């Protein structure tokens, strides 16, 4: 997982500076001096730093230490905080339902916690449709939590395709990006 994130981030960084070689060759007249290995090595360091801070899914936002500890404990139990979906789909499968029930029980045991469900889509299709699709995915999760009478404690936000975890333009990347994240506060 981490490996994939690093790789995809390096693609982004390299593409942002794709004209370096061209520029350098123009300025120095010695294009052979900059080798590809050099540039990869130089950018990888930066990317690892990037990775820690941003692409990690946050499961907790807020200042309440009690809530934070409770969420950490839940995560240590192995409960899943990111649910994945099929292409253009917002149905919840049996496996995901089991995970949602664990979250429902957690919320019942911890009446002080509130939950934000953020819905996401992959990059395929239009941005505006994907914004709607992401909301439907988060709403599907909320619907199950509603069976446990938790509706008023759950907020839904859609980011559509705007906050991808993976930058890869392939099925593996897309699958990671079609998701709902649980963020407690």
């Amino acid at each position, binding site marked *: 997982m981490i490996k994939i994130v690093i790789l995809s981030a390096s693609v982004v960084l390299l593409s942002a500076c794709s004209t370096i070689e061209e520029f350098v060759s123009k300025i120095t007249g010695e294009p052979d001096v900059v080798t590809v290995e050099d540039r990869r090595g130089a950018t990888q360091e930066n990317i690892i730093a990037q990775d820690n801070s*941003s692409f990690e899914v946050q499961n907790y936002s807020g200042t309440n230490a009690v809530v934070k500890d409770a969420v950490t404990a839940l995560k240590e139990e192995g409960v899943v905080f990111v649910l994945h979906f099929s292409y253009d789909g917002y149905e919840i499968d049996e496996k995901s339902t089991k995970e949602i029930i664990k979250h429902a029980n957690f919320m019942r045991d911890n009446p002080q916690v509130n939950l934000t469900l953020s819905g996401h889509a992959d990059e395929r299709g239009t941005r*505006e449709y994907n914004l709607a699709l992401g909301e439907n995915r988060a709403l599907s999760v909320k619907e199950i939590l509603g069976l446990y009478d938790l509706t008023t404690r759950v907020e839904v936000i859609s980011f559509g395709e705007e906050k991808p975890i993976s930058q890869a333009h392939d099925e593996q990347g897309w699958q990671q990006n079609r998701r709902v994240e649980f963020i407690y506060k």
Partner: protein
Amino acid sequence: MRFTRLLAVFVCLYSVMAHAILEVTVLKQDEEAFPIVIAPFEVVGNAKQGQEIANIMRDNFNRSGEFNASSSKDVINAEVDYDKWRSQKTEALVYGKIEKVNKKVFKVKVHLLDIYSSKELYTKEFSVHNSGIRRIAHYLSDQIYEALLGEKGSFYTRLSYITVVNKERGKREYRLEISHSDAQNPQTILVSSSPILSPAWSPDQKKIAYVSFENGRSEVFIRYPFVRRKTQKLPYFDGISSAPSWHPDGQSIALTLSKKGNKDIYSYHLKDKKLTRLTFDNSIDTEANYSPDGDSIVFTSNRSGQVQVYIKNLITGKIKRATFAGTYNAKAVFSPDGKQLVMVHRVDKDYRIALLDIKTKDLIIMTNNSLDESPYFSPNGNMIIFATNKKNQGVLSVVSLLGRETFELASKAGEVREPNWSHYSR
């Protein structure tokens, strides 16, 4: 070695700072295109800026894909030798004169000649302020285009688009930008660390509606790029607020609002501050676009179980499905004459731009890429601008209606996306 690497970092930084300027690449010069010579203008007094007019016009005509514009060796200021131009296979000739009247004002005279009939098709004389040189060049391009082809050009117009630049620690910088139709004179309207989507010029070209996540969720805003006026936020219910589209009268905006999870299209009247619901289905309804007469909207819906495009007649209330070919059609936009739709169309695994004749249902796939989106017509309807990926980089591309790629707009520093083409200036 170390020096070279430092230099590389510096160059990269430099290109990030200069990112607002898009690079324009003319993709294909068609040899069959209309041959036109735009001669360098005769300059009287110290009117250096004047040369710009002929250069901008030449670039405009070449970018359109319909012309093959070149310069001439000499300034033309005497009797025109039609036979000479005929022998060079030139069909039209533009020449002119620019004279400095005072520090900031120039007098300009322009002529357009039809070489085959030996006739003057268009001439104009006027005064122009220094700051208006570029705009005048675009205006004259439109006039000449119309004199030659009998229909309006799309040069004296503006573009809006979003740029995205990757910053340190995985952060991104989003910019809402506007420019002239040739991507020159770029201006940043908004910088944000949150995503910006769907910019849309108002019909009077004075306002831009867009979607921003600056408050943590999608909301629709209206901004005034040319005057100091407060940004306006449009109302929303408990979910997404997105996909703004101006009514042609400029008085109201169609947008997608989610209420108790149900995403429908509403029209918001800006003066009356009144919301009117336009769609009522339980499925996703979004991406509305008004027909040029304002009597219909086209929108995307998954009501059939597939993502398809529908047209609602706002007078009769009737909704008709517009797309039947393919399993995914979305984000349709009316052509300026209201007879066609351009949209995102899925072909196997690829998302391409397709043109649909509303009456005959003929669908033509216009592009050949895999992740095309956000198509929009030029104001004369002869070109389509859209966002695509080239070498893993988001760029804007323009195709002529004949399916010919004409030009591409790219940023060295990052991605360009979500293009919108303004109406004509008034």
